[in-house]
């Protein structure tokens, strides 16, 4: 055991030479003793002065002088050694970094930091059914699904900033733009535009979702909302909470501005009990509930032949075809359905990751009050999904697979392979099709079920090549109002090349 470890930069040559010279002196001998060294380092001389003959005063003076010189040499060496050690430990000034998490510059104490990230998803998509040529041709395309430069910054070590525009899908949109003040881990304040609490798969970062498109239940949550959110992690992130006041966006939308005074409230409580103590060995289990509720008032007023903002969504299939729209008229506002008052979502959610295995499941129940002319009503919609995934050559997690070794052809390393299977469903309220007729049953489905499999090749944490197959069957959505038929089953094969850092 090395109780007294040797610093790395020790240089003894000068002193050793000096001592060797002393040993040659005929009237004076300075013997060197070798201190035992316990760490395998070369022996180090320590001085023991052998007294000169008592009758030689000049020899005594010379010995004392040599002893002093020896000490001076040793002190100088040690000071140099300590200075070099101190220099090695002193934090440098601003540093530049480039790694799998992006490119950045930061101050020495990390209080100020700027990081540049990017997400590119280049897709090839094809629908494999032939009885709807219009839809088939619409989907059969190469597509830049997401093109996002992402800017992260930290100011004073207290406030984080994120800005995420998107140039994919042939549009330009702002997805994230928020500041996060984090005086402590358990109390943080987020202000701006961000993902609202409802939707566990929605909260998973885009590049880590095993499938190329999210599941059917993502239709029942807003993509982004604007407002304020208190959030934090308690007890080593075993308890996570979010409390938000938001504009209250319609499902699937990213609108930046509210057009009425009422606001929505949202919250999420998510427990990860295995974060405590040694329970981590059991994996990462998370479960909880997200809720949102508020008044959302749309309008059926016409502007240029279109309703200005009904504050109601359209729902899409995994192949991104529109499968449900509320009734709207381009000529008669009384025939256009709009959001009217209460809109509530409850979203129990669960995930579990342990080694290569992953499970993510959630269910969303949505209550939406709507109006049409002088009449009103409410629809209860439900959706959910279960995704199972298995990573070969890496570890699974909510924040994506982590290949044990990145792909390296020379070393015959392939990275990691992720296999996933998913079942998701969407069940829309029949009330929408009867009575006040909030939707046309020959154009909008009343239910959808999707089975999908995914194969993802993670070359490393940043690069993924994906292939997914989704088969979605529908109830309603075709035929005529009086003779409703089922919309043709979608068989969608998508491929993706993704770079994200």
């Amino acid at each position, binding site marked *: 055991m090395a109780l007294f470890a040797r610093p790395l930069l020790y240089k003894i040559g000068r002193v050793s030479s000096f001592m060797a010279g002393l040993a040659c002196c005929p009237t004076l001998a300075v013997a060197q003793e070798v201190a035992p060294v316990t760490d395998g380092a070369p022996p180090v001389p320590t001085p023991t002065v052998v007294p000169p003959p008592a009758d030689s005063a000049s020899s005594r003076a010379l010995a004392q002088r040599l002893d002093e010189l020896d*000490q001076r040499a040793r002190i100088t060496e*040690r*000071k140099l050694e300590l200075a070099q050690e101190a220099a090695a430990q002193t934090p440098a000034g601003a540093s530049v970094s480039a790694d799998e998490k992006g490119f950045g510059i930061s101050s020495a104490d990390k209080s100020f930091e700027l990081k540049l990230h990017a997400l590119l998803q280049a897709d090839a998509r094809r629908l494999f059914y032939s009885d709807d040529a219009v839809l088939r041709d619409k989907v059969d395309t190469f597509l830049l699904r997401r093109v996002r430069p992402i800017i992260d910054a930290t100011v004073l070590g207290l406030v984080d900033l994120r800005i995420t525009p998107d140039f994919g899908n042939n549009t330009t949109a702002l997805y994230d733009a928020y500041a996060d003040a984090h005086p402590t881990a358990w109390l943080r304040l987020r202000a701006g535009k961000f993902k609202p609490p409802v939707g566990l798969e929605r909260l998973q970062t885009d590049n880590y979702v095993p499938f190329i498109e999210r599941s059917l239940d993502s239709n029942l949550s807003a993509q982004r909302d604007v407002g304020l959110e208190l959030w934090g992690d308690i007890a080593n992130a075993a308890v996570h909470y979010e409390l938000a006041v938001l504009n209250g966006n319609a499902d699937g939308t990213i609108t930046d501005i509210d057009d009425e005074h009422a606001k929505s409230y949202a919250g999420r409580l998510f427990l990860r*009990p295995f974060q405590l103590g040694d*329970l981590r060995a*059991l994996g990462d289990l998370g479960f909880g509930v997200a809720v949102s509720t508020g008044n959302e008032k749309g309008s059926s007023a016409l502007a240029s032949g279109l309703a200005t903002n009904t504050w109601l969504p359209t729902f899409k299939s995994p192949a991104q075809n529109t499968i449900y729209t509320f009734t709207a008229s381009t000529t008669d506002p009384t025939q256009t359905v709009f959001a009217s008052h209460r809109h509530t979502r*409850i979203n129990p959610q669960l995930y579990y990751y342990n080694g290569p295995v992953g499970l993510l499941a959630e269910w969303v129940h949505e209550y939406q009050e709507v109006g049409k002319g002088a009449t009103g009503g409410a629809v209860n919609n439900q959706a959910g999904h279960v995704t199972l995934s298995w990573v070969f050559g890496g570890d699974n997690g909510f924040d994506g697979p982590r290949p044990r070794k990145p792909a390296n052809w020379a070393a015959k390393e392939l990275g990691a392979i992720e296999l996933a299977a998913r079942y998701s469903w969407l069940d829309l309220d029949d009330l929408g099709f009867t009575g006040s007729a909030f939707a046309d049953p020959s154009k909008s489905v009343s239910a959808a079920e999707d089975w999908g499999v995914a194969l993802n090749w993670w070359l490393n944490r940043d690069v993924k090549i994906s292939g997914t197959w989704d088969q979605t069957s529908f109830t309603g959505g075709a035929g005529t109002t009086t003779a409703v038929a089922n919309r043709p089953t979608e068989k969608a094969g998508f491929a993706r090349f993704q770079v994200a850092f």
Partner: protein
Amino acid sequence: MRPKKFRSLKQFASSVVWVVVSVAGVMLAAGGTARAQVKLLNVSYDPTRELYVDVNKAFAQKWQRQTGQSVTINQSHGGSGKQARSVIDGLQADVVTLALAYDIDAIAEKSGRLPKDWQKRLPENSTPYTSTVVFVVRKGNPRGIKDWDDLVKPGTVVVAPNPKTSGGARWVYLAAWGQALQKSGGDAAKARDYVTRFYKNVPVLDSGARGATTTFAQRGVGQVLVSWENEAALLVGELGRDKFEIVNPGTSILAEPPVALVDRNVDKHGTRAVADAYLHFLYTPEAQAIAARHHYRPRDAKIGAPFPKIKLFTIEEVFGGWQKAQAAHFADGALFDQIYQPGT
């Protein structure tokens, strides 16, 4: 195939509550099984490595016998002040066993991770063992060093660590000041003069006690090392009595390294009970004997360890406590900054 649809929000919400309660119950049951193992982190200062290896082993065996729970105690060592800073910055210490009460005070004040009256929670002001400051000289004591006055003679090269960075070094500084003050009948000017001459003979200021030992023993610098009693004994025992000797001064300081529970961290980790038992274990005859074996002076007089008799004064008696000593001597611009003029 599609799951059954709930007819209302109320029906759905009640089902959610039922599922959450069920899952939580399963988790609690699983958690009970996993609690059979627990980990602690003891953040300590430099020279206690060897002491706590033995203490931890003894405590783990005792805890296993008493509770059936397996406990692993991880150790972190470094300069006392630096370790305190790490805990303030978030190092997840369950317990701290540092060189100075001042350093634990700093954790309490700056992070709020433990109450400010932490020192009242355990016996002996939360100091289960003590030490003092002694000298180590090379075999034969060529300079004839016997007491403090010999350290300020011209030409004597003294090795001691830096009081600005090392807890042990502050004990050295206060020992030097306190003995000079007592010898002069309380004349602060004479004490200052003595300490000024003392540090004039210290050409190298290492950042910690272990570094000073390296400077003296392995780099061959100086004729005398002023250090913790336990560190001196370890040095002589490790590197040989044929190379070094311990010289006990007539007067020195009673160094009282304190220990404390870091409340906020143990509550976060769920380790309060085992961490508290760990600190109380330090006062048991078994742990006191281990401390004595490692040349720390046990509080338990029944241990009967053979420590040399040195007239010891406490920091309370001479300096009025750590806060006053820190402000007067070690704060930026205080006495040490005023007097330190490296020689040689």
